[in-house]
């Protein structure tokens, strides 16, 4: 069917940042994840764990705690500020200084009216949550030693605070400390070290559960302030606790990377006297588990090893279903690589810099399976450091390779590149139109003379580029009323169409000639993860977080016949079982029937001229086809041609000369760059 020359690129040193904190909003089923570099990511658990929003971080912002109040997201960190995020514009809305030194924790009460922050100076500061901001209300009585962790009693009348060597219980009305629970230090050498109560949980029945740096999970009676039970879980620290909604289960994350579950069950069947019993241990992490969420059916954990792990509790989900599968989310669900198809350049986006590489060359042709000798090595042309503290939220490289643009929360920057074989020049375009601000996605048109930027209120700013300057042309708007950010911009090859997708699952197509909305694709319940317009047929192909594929004819403004057939027949189960989203779609100009897409673990060419695979046919059939003689091959083949030779794909692009560029980032390389985990005694070592 096709031979490809593949540039296999492994020099993108993408390094995800460690997960610091997580908060789960059970009403909207959104998980907020804070990373060590200050970035906040929003995952939609109702939609196949799709990472729908990323708010870029910033130097010096270290988030220690995240907290949902209703649909509003707050964070606090060691910079001493409480920040609320604007989830529509993907930026911090405001930050206020708490004046208590570094903030270790924040926690909202169940009504969503108050926010308590635990500070380094020993105060618990109460903030009133107002309509558009938060306002300092008062301090609870000040303690000696920092407040590391906080937990509200569900009634809101009391609040438990984990400190050094102790836990305090405050009356939230009066602000006085009512109990002091002394936490034992570790034995032996650590006796002299203060024990840090990393996490507390205040349950409805006034049970307090604490996890501390001596490796203990302790159960306390909050009414009397007495210790009920101690579970020694690890030799290292218990860093985080999470309680299930019904308070029947508690999980504790440790420095060893284990997660220990405790359940409130009766020791013998049929008896009423329940107690907290250590039940299960999960080990999905190699490093510290810093953040935990206990949903009704799963344990969600993250930590130093940067992966987000969703571990379903097998007693809560149906066995052997998609839901019961362990999921590890290690790579972002968006592109960090831009490719200049015509120039053979690659742009890699890092939080605080960009790298521009030129691909290598080989003048030889080879037979399939062969590695070609590399004549010219790939070359790093430019490393561009950002100005200011804000991290890059998006970047783009024009197809001809002469424009480069990136955006931070604060600003958009555009550069003009001139690259000849031995001379590279980069020139900043100084005067950008005022409309280019608050940008979350950037994209160049295929002829490189337009720049599209998704902006606030789901609008797209169109800027015209020419040799000398850039000029604001138009702001494209749709009328659906959605204010959610646009996360995909996809212009057509001929420059007529621009497709946009936002996190409200809407796909709008604009006519760039008339600069107005052409049509909206009928809304589908799952968020589009990749959208692209076919260069010749003008069909829009979209792939969604639930792995469904649609093809929509822009001329007829209806789903194409192929798409209908695909929906009638259904996708192959193995296709639907993949757990990473398709992040890009491209087309082969030589063969209009081919659609190329990829996720982290495979890339796939869909041949629309071939029959779709039935549920019982072998989906991954490349090996079998290879062994068959040519005529038989045709009979056996089906539309989905999957290649799994390359793994941990961050990007797959088809260059103009029809060679493929695959950018791999093997997980082992990421793991190799992690700091050493805590030492563990292994048997026979």
């Amino acid at each position: 069917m096709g031979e490809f020359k593949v540039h296999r690129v492994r020099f993108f040193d993408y390094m995800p940042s460690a997960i610091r904190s997580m908060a789960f909003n059970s009403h909207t089923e959104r998980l907020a994840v804070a990373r060590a570099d200050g970035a906040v990511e929003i995952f939609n658990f109702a939609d196949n764990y799709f990472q729908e929003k990323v708010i870029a971080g910033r130097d010096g912002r270290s988030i220690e705690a995240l907290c949902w109040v209703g649909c509003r997201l707050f964070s606090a960190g060691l910079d001493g500020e409480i920040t609320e995020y604007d989830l529509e514009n993907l930026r911090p809305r405001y930050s206020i200084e708490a004046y208590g030194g570094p903030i270790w924790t924040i926690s909202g009460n169940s009504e969503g009216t108050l926010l308590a922050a635990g500070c380094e100076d020993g105060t618990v500061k109460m903030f009133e949550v107002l309509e558009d901001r938060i306002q300092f209300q008062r301090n609870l009585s000040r303690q000696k030693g920092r407040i590391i962790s906080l937990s509200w009693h569900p009634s809101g009348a009391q609040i438990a605070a984990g400190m050094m060597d102790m836990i305090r219980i405050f009356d939230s009305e009066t602000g006085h400390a009512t109990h002091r629970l002394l936490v034992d230090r570790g034995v032996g050498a650590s006796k002299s070290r203060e024990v840090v109560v990393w996490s507390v949980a205040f349950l409805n029945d006034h049970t307090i559960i604490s996890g501390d740096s001596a490796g203990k999970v302790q159960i306390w009676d909050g009414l009397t302030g007495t210790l009920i039970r101690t579970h020694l879980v690890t030799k290292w620290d218990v860093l985080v606790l999470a309680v299930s909604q019904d308070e029947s289960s508690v999980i504790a994350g440790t420095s060893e990377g284990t997660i220990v579950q405790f359940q409130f069950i009766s020791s013998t069947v049929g008896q009423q006297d329940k107690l907290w019993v250590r039940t299960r241990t999960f080990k999905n992490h190699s490093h510290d588990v810093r953040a935990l969420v206990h949903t009704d059916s799963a344990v969600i954990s993250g930590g130093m090893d940067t992966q987000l792990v969703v571990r379903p509790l097998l007693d809560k989900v149906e066995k052997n279903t998609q839901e019961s599968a362990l999921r590890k989310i290690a790579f972002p669900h968006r592109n960090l690589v831009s490719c200049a198809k015509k120039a053979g350049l690659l742009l890699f986006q890092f939080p605080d810099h960009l790298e521009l590489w030129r691909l290598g060359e080989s003048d030889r042709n080879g037979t399939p399976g062969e590695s070609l000798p590399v004549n010219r090595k790939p070359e790093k042309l430019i490393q561009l450091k950002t100005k200011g503290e804000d991290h890059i939220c998006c970047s783009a490289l024009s197809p001809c390779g002469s424009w480069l643009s990136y955006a931070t929360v604060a600003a958009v920057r555009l550069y003009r590149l001139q690259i000849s074989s031995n001379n590279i020049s980069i020139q900043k375009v100084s005067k950008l139109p005022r409309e280019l601000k608050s940008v979350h996605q950037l994209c160049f048109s295929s002829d490189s003379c337009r720049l599209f930027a998704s902006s606030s209120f789901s609008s797209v700013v169109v800027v015209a580029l020419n040799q000398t300057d850039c000029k604001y042309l138009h702001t494209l708007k749709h009328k659906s009323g959605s204010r959610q950010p646009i996360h995909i911009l996809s212009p057509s090859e001929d420059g007529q169409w621009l497709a946009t997708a936002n996190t409200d699952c809407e796909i709008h197509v604009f006519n760039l000639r008339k600069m107005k909305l052409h049509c909206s694709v009928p809304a589908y319940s799952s968020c589009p993860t990749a959208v692209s317009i076919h260069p010749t047929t003008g069909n829009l192909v979209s792939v969604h977080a639930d792995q469904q594929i649609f093809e929509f004819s822009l001329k007829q403004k209806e789903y194409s016949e192929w798409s209908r057939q695909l929906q009638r027949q259904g996708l192959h189960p193995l296709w639907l079982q993949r757990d990473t989203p398709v992040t890009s779609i491209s087309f082969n100009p030589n063969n209009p029937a081919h659609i190329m897409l990829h996720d982290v673990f495979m890339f796939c060419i869909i041949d629309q001229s071939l029959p779709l695979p039935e549920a019982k046919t072998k989906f991954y059939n490349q090996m079998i086809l290879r062994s068959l003689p040519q005529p038989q091959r045709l009979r056996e083949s089906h539309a989905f041609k999957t290649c799994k030779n390359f793994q941990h794909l961050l990007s797959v692009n088809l260059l103009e000369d029809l060679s493929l560029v695959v950018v791999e980032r093997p997980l082992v390389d990421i793991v190799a760059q992690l700091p050493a985990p805590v030492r563990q005694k292994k048997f026979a070592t």
Partner: protein
Amino acid sequence: MAALCEGYTLCGLVPAVNRRSSEIKGIEEERDSDHVIVTDSSRSVTLYKVSDQKPLGSWTVKQGQVLTCAAVFNRLTNEYVAVSDNKVIRIWKEDDIILDKAFKATVSADVRSVHCAHGAEPAVLFQRGAVRLLDSLLSAPQQPVEEVLVQDEAIRWSTNIVTETQQMVIFTTELKGDHFLYLQRLKPNSVQKYRLEPEEPGLSPLSFWASYRDKNICLLYLYPNGRVYQSLVSVRGPAPDDGAQAVPLPRDQLLSLPVGEELLEAASAIFLDDAHVAVVGVPHPSAGPGKDFLCIWNTNFQTLQAAKEMAGKLYGQLWSFSSKLFIPHGKALSVIPFACPRSSLALALGKLKQVKTEESKTSTVVPSWNTILHGEEAAPPKTAEARKTRTTRKMQSSLSLTIDQVQDLIKTAPVEEVEKEVQELLSRQDPKDPQPSLGQLALALVSRSLADPKFYSSRALTQLVPIRCLSHSVCPDLLPLALEKRDYFLCQLCLLFFHDIPEAVTCACLKTFISLSDADAERLSLEPDSVSFVEMLISNERAQTGLQNGFSPALCEEDRTDAVDDPKAKAKEKQKASPQQTCPVGKHKAALINEVLQTAYSEALLLPHLKDFSSDQVVLFLRYLEFLYLRYSTDGFSQMHGYRSPSLNQVMDWVCMLLDAHFTVLVMSPVAKGLLLNLQSFVRSQVRLFSELGKIEGSLQELTKMKMKKDVGQYSIEVIELY
């Protein structure tokens, strides 16, 4: 299996005519396990070297004085300590010749005993319950000694226990029929008092024994009704509150020994290790009323592991020092070495590998340890279950008179009537819950048959054997009786259902089966399953072809591979090989031998008995085993049928053992030469097969390695093709 070795006499005793106890007051270990000091009840203390059976020294107090407690040896100072006339403590060294010249001190109260455990200071127990360390006592011999015990309370037994951190003296007392245990800790002093659970009224423990294990003191005591109890006393225990209140001491029944009609008088039980108890003065379960037995019981499996009849009267005294039992009996003090290997299930049952048939067949009728320990119906732990059956036995025998009646009937009635009654009784039983007392019927039948040579009821016994309640240890004479009466069907049943047949008996069976003439054997009626298995084995012996397990009989003579291509040579080879393919024994005989092959055994114990076989027997047996082995390896049918059959491993084990036992004889014998050559080439072909497999494995590993090695590096340009 625990075993008692041949004993020897350490010293003679003056026969005690009308006394219950022997003249030995006590035996204590001296400097090492080979030296003991024996204190006799009159005046002398003697030091013996046990392995030499000779005295090394003896000390006697003056006429008129009496030693009132057993002498002990203080290892710290190499001194002996004894007490004469209740109040005079005497201390001497080995080179002191005359005892009267040695050190003595008179104390203010009567001394009950002196104890000195390994490496600890001697402790003195006074008759009224006070305890002093010898050193502190001697520093002020006339110090007042308090009374711990109340009026009428008297010490019955005492000993000394040393834990890692503490030394303690424990003693039991009796007060108006109640028994108490005192735990006196030394340094710091504290005393804890426990009350023993009362047994039937009027019964006092006959013997006590205490040992320290796992932070607990384990107290073992035997009652005259044959029950052996164990109580665990925690060393740490509750906070000492001056022992004001006697804490009830829970107990576990370890064993219920058969005592016959009358209660025991002089008996004692001691722990040999955590699973074995040595009992003296209790009747052997199948040897009638005589009580002159020394037995070792396994408490985990409730089985009698070894027994020895002692000549002369037993005094119910027993000591054990480092795998030697010291037992005074009749006119002598005997030393009997014993061995208690760690009792694992495998050892207790021998090698029982055939799990498959175990599940399919036997488990329904016979309690296998597998099902008792892990099985569905055995929820209570093993000892509890066994204990229950033992305790209920007594109850039920008193309740269900019919079994007793039948038992009485067996003693007198003719065979036909007995058989009828037994059958009727069995038909009334619930097959799921057979009564253990049914086993008594078998015992009665066997003892009648032994006593009356004309009486033998094969039918009744064959009905009784497949019941859960019978085993070889319960009725050890059954299988030898069946052999003697040539009742081979019963033998087969016993081999099938008993899991504890000693290797000697197994070998006796095997020997009889092998030397059985085929004509006789064909007349037997045997268990149909086993016979049909052999029939199948023989019937398709010709039908097999092809290579299985890498072995072709055509190839076994020579390692010529081209023989396969040449049809003539192949036929010739086959002809040559075929004689081994006929079964060397008749099918009934084969069925019987198969039964032996499947029994449990342990190799070390079986080997000596195997050596008794004559060379003809060995050759025949070996030929049969070879036949089985060939059948098994030339077609894969050892797995495919549901019969109870010996497994390939069992066959192989027997071949190995037989060769081990008789190799030299076989090598010399011309008859066996071909056989051995065959076996050898067979083994060689197997070895070749495995080496070939090893090569394949190696190359496969190499393949996976090659796949792994492909390292891409930072950048490469590759060509792929999609189809």
